[in-house]
Each structure stands twice: as C-alpha cells, then as structure tokens.
C-alpha cells in the first residue's frame, strides 16, 4: 500500500473526487494559479480549469456565502480558508445560513470548508487556531478532524459526498509529520465513526487531530510505567461516535480527553459530560481534560509550548486518574 503524507492524502482525495464527479469544485484565495498556500491544489487548475478551481477575491464570508449558493444550485463546492483562523469572518454564513437551510427550507447544502488549523508552527494568535469549538456548538454543521493520512483521504471523500455542510479541520502541524499507509483505491471513512488506535485496559485516552499522536506517545510512556492506555481517535466531532468512547470507558473505568483547542467549553467538556451522564457507575475517577490554556495562542516558542497540550501533560493526567 502506498505511503503518503497527510498533506498528500488531502490533495489526492480532492483530486480523485474532482475526477469522479464534475460537480465538485474548489474555491478560495490563491488556490488556482498559485496552487494554494500549502500547495494542496498544485496542478489542479491545469487539470480541471479555472472555473472549477476558482481564485476568489479576499473575503472569507463571501467565499463561504458563494459556496452555499453553488451548493444550492447543484455543485459540490470545497471552499478553502487559507488559515482556519479566518473562518471567524464566515461565522454568520456558516452558523445562520448554511446550518439552517435544511432545517428551515429542506435544501441540501453539500458544502465542505477546508480549514488548515492548529499550532506548533510559530504562527502566533491568528495562524494557529483550532476554531472547531465555535461551530461544534451550532446546529446544522458537521465537523471532522483526521489524525492520520488515511483518514485525511477517507474523511475528505466522505465530507465531499455528504449532502450537508462539513467543516474539515486539517491540522497544519500534521501535514508533513504524519505519514502512513493510504489505500490507493477509492474508499471513504464514514462520518460518525471513532477508531480505537491502541487497545488498553487501564485508562481511555480520547483525542482528535493533533492529540491522537500525542495520546499514542503518552500511551507508550505509560506502558513503561505499567499502565496500559486505550487510545480512541474521535475522527468525527459532529456527528460524534460516543458509543465507542463509552464502550472503552466501561472497560477501563478512567478517561482523559485531550484537544488542542482551549479548555473552557471545548469539545472535551461535552465528551466529559456525556461520559458522566451515561457511564457514571463505570467511572473510578473523574474525567480529566487536557487542553490549551484559556488564552489567545501565544507566539514565542516557550509560551506556545506552555500553552499547548503535550504527551507529557497527558501522561500526567492519566497518572492522576489512575491514582484516584
């Protein structure tokens, strides 16, 4: 099986979907002639033409608004935010327009918004965010966050084929650092399905995006200390596969949830609340969250390192719940 980087897998998925279905189009800033800020759409305009790989003026709310219109009229647009941080400009279009068109009017809105997100890349406060939390709270938006190259491909295909608006959180830090086997053939990773990346009986480590790798690293360290951790990769935030998480917690009795988004009101809070509500009698310790500080993303490396979650912080949290 071919080995691809996370970035290559995204590009491959997008190219294959554009070949498979003429309704799939891309739009965003610098994606056409320039091939995209991260070169994910390099060569696409040559293959698919300027109309299907559209370079837009700079206005994120109208990029998303336009994509909504394209979706209503029979296309399957994949809009790119050059950095996930700029999605705040499209908040209204996503939360009030895209998210409510089916509930109110019965329209399907087959729209994908690709969001290069995440820190650890010296990006500072406005090139490092993980904005999924804001949209997790809306009603009517699906959200996925791949952690592996295979999932980057399979989840993007699934997102494009979904008739609803899907935010695709592609983590920039993982672009070239994550590399794994990606099936060459057409495959999708269905939305709403978590994956157990490592079995274990002593504590459940839940994560998504960049924190899955951190959780696996933490699990390796914990194993040398006699603790076997089970790592659950959520993959899909809306819809979320809580059953896999709960099934794991019912066996391990302890849980740590990690995300790179800020702690307060982050998706980890939702997972923790659901575990407490649905599996309280199985818990031997409180559910602990590991997350970024409740601050803007700082720039200087020692500040950012302190801000971000890490394998070490997960190990510490796991040991805390194990000792409880």
């Amino acid at each position: 099986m071919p080995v691809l980087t996370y970035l290559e897998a995204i590009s491959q998925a997008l190219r294959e979907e554009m070949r498979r279905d003429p309704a799939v189009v891309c739009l965003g800033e610098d994606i056409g002639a320039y091939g995209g800020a991260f070169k994910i759409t390099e060569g696409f305009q040559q293959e698919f033409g300027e109309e299907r790989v559209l370079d837009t003026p700079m206005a994120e709310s109208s990029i998303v608004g336009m994509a909504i219109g394209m979706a209503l009229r029979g296309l399957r647009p994949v809009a790119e935010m050059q950095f996930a941080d700029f999605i705040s400009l499209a908040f209204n279009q996503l939360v009030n327009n895209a998210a409510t068109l089916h509930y109110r009017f019965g329209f399907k809105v087959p729209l994908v918004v690709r969001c290069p997100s995440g820190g650890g890349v010296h990006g500072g406060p406005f090139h490092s965010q993980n904005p999924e939390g804001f949209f997790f709270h809306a009603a009517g938006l699906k959200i996925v966050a791949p952690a592996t190259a295979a999932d980057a491909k399979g989840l993007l295909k699934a997102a494009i084929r979904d008739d609803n608006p899907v935010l695709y959180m592609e983590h920039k830090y993982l672009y070239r650092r994550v590399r794994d086997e990606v099936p060459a053939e057409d495959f999708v990773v269905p939305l709403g399905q978590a994956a157990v990346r490592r079995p274990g009986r002593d504590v459940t480590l839940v994560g998504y995006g960049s924190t899955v790798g951190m959780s696996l690293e933490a699990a390796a360290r914990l194993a040398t200390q006699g603790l076997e951790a089970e790592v659950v990769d959520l993959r899909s935030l809306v819809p979320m596969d809580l059953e896999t998480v709960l099934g794991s917690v019912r066996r391990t009795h302890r849980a740590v949830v990690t995300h790179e988004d800020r702690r307060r009101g982050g998706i980890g809070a939702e997972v923790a609340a659901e575990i407490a509500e649905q599996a309280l009698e199985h818990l031997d310790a409180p559910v602990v969250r590991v997350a970024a500080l409740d601050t803007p993303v700082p720039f200087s490396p020692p500040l950012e390192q302190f801000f971000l979650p890490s394998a070490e912080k997960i190990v510490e949290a796991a040991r805390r719940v194990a000792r409880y």
Partner: protein
Amino acid sequence: MMDPAPPKDVIDIPDADYGDIPRATLLDLYHYVRLTREVELQLINLFKQSKVVGGLYPGYGHEATTVGTALALGPDDVLLPLHRDLGAHLARRQPAKFIFAQYMGKATSPTHGKDGNVHLANPELNIVGCISHIGAMLPVAVGISYAGRLLGKSVVTMSYVGDGGSSIGEVHEALNFAAVLNVPFVLVVENNRFAYSTPVDRQYKVRHISDRAAGYGMVGDRVDGNNVLAVYAAARRAVERGRRGEGPTMLECETVRMLGHSVHDAAKYVPPELIEAGRRRDPVARYESYLLRKGVLQPAEVEDWTRRLHREVAEAVEWAEQSPLPEPADAGRGVFAEPGEGACLH
C-alpha cells in the same frame, strides 16, 4: 379591512417608453400588485386579531418595486427575497396560502413552522428565502449564478437590500465578487428612506446608493420604485444585461415606507410630508389609473378583479386557519439532509 394609508390625489404614472410590454404582462403586473396589497391588508387584519405569530413587517408601498423586479425573471432564474418583498414571492407564483400559513406558524407552511413571516423558500419556483441578517443572501446569489454558468445555463439571480442594508460589509463583498466574476446578478436596492428609525442621511454619504455601482465596476441604475412599469423595464434591462454576459446590475428603486418598520412601530420619526408624497404616489392606485386611462382595463374588469382577489385571498386565509399547528417533537427533526432527500434549485 381598513386600508391604513388610503391613496389620495394620485399622481399619474408618466407616459414614457417602458419597452414593448405585452398586454398579458401588463395584466400580470396589475394582478400581482393588487394581490400583494390585498394579502398585506389581510395580514394586518389578522395581526390585529392576534392570529399572526410574532411580528409583521409590512411592505405596504413597495408593491411596484417587488412585483416589477420579480416578474422580470424567467423560470430558470433564482429569486432571493428579503423581509419586505412579499410582492416578489407572490409575483413568482408563491401561493398566498403559504404566506398566511407561515405567519400563523402552521405545519402546512413551507417551513413546517420552523421559520416565520416571509422567511420561506420554494425550490420548485427557484426561490431561496432569507435569514434575518441583511446582505447574507447576496454572496449566495453570486454563487448560484456562478454555478448556473458553470453548468452551462443562464441563471440570473435577483436579491434585495434596503437603504439600511446597503451599509453592511457583506453587500460590498458580494457586489465586488459579482463584478469580478462577471455573473448575472441583479441587486435591487429598495430605498424607502428609513432603516427602522434611521433616515438615509445618517446611513450613507453618497447622493444615491446606485452611485456606488461605478465603484465596483458594475452598472448602476435608479428608477421611481412606485412606478411598476419603470421598475419592470429597468429590471428587464438588468436581466437581459446579465443574460448577454455583461455582468451584474445594481438597481435602486426609490420608494416610501408607508407604514412603520413593523406594525408595532408608529413611525412618528417619519415626516408627514414624506408619507403624504408616498400616498399620492401609491403604486397600486397609480398603475390601475394608468391602465384605465390607456384602455388596457375597463372599470367593470377592475371590479371583477377586486371580487376575484377578495375571494382568492379569503380562501387562502381559510386554508391557513384550518391548517394544524406542527407536532411539538418536530422541533428536533430535520437538522441534516438524509442521503438523496434534500431539495435543490434547478
């Protein structure tokens, strides 16, 4: 039902060249401005009887602007009306009974009670309803026209903002996109001189909103929004311009908001002279007078029309009143489209 702003001393529609408008279209325009007025008066009536859920934002006085613009579109074109554009819905053949069901929050409304007042769509009629945030539908319209072109069809989109809405950032973004991408998009600016209580001299510095069109590199036009023939002719020009591949148009229609922002609003901030001027330029009365003067209609036909409209609207109200309210648990359904189930424009 009592007309809250009866026209007096109506100022005639001037004789001018409005293009070659077939008699059938002249009568369509007449039918829909009258229907719009009739539905509006019934809505006000129902509101006073507490049969309307929530607010009512009357478009009384906007009939020429809304009907004249919407009738210029073809069946493959797409209409994106705003909250005061009842006339656009009706002119596009949106059934009046759906309007009443919407206002009453009934299960039979096109939104099944999920949204109210004029926030309704109709995929078969290529109508996309709005959200309350003004301007949000404009980039959507640009995207619809763009998609049409990519799919090899001529899809003109038409949407609306008011004088107030014209200040919103997204309006500028969308106009810029429309011009750069050269899409067939018509933005109707309904300038009724007031955004709730804010008069135009507190809203913008340019003399006319349509003066801004040049700033985007697109065509701007401005007409008497109380003259349905002038509006229709200008809208036709804009639609045809789009069809010829010559890009978007900003069409400013100057009118007067005859009633308050909502029926609750006594609108004492509006100078009485303005209301008086609006009353004398009542779009429905002027147009009827014009058609009678030109012999397109006879007085007996006008009476006939009145009877038919009263009956049609009464039946629509009856249908809505007899309709059930939605099942409470429906509130939790329909957030996402199931595979193969969602509607599409065509």
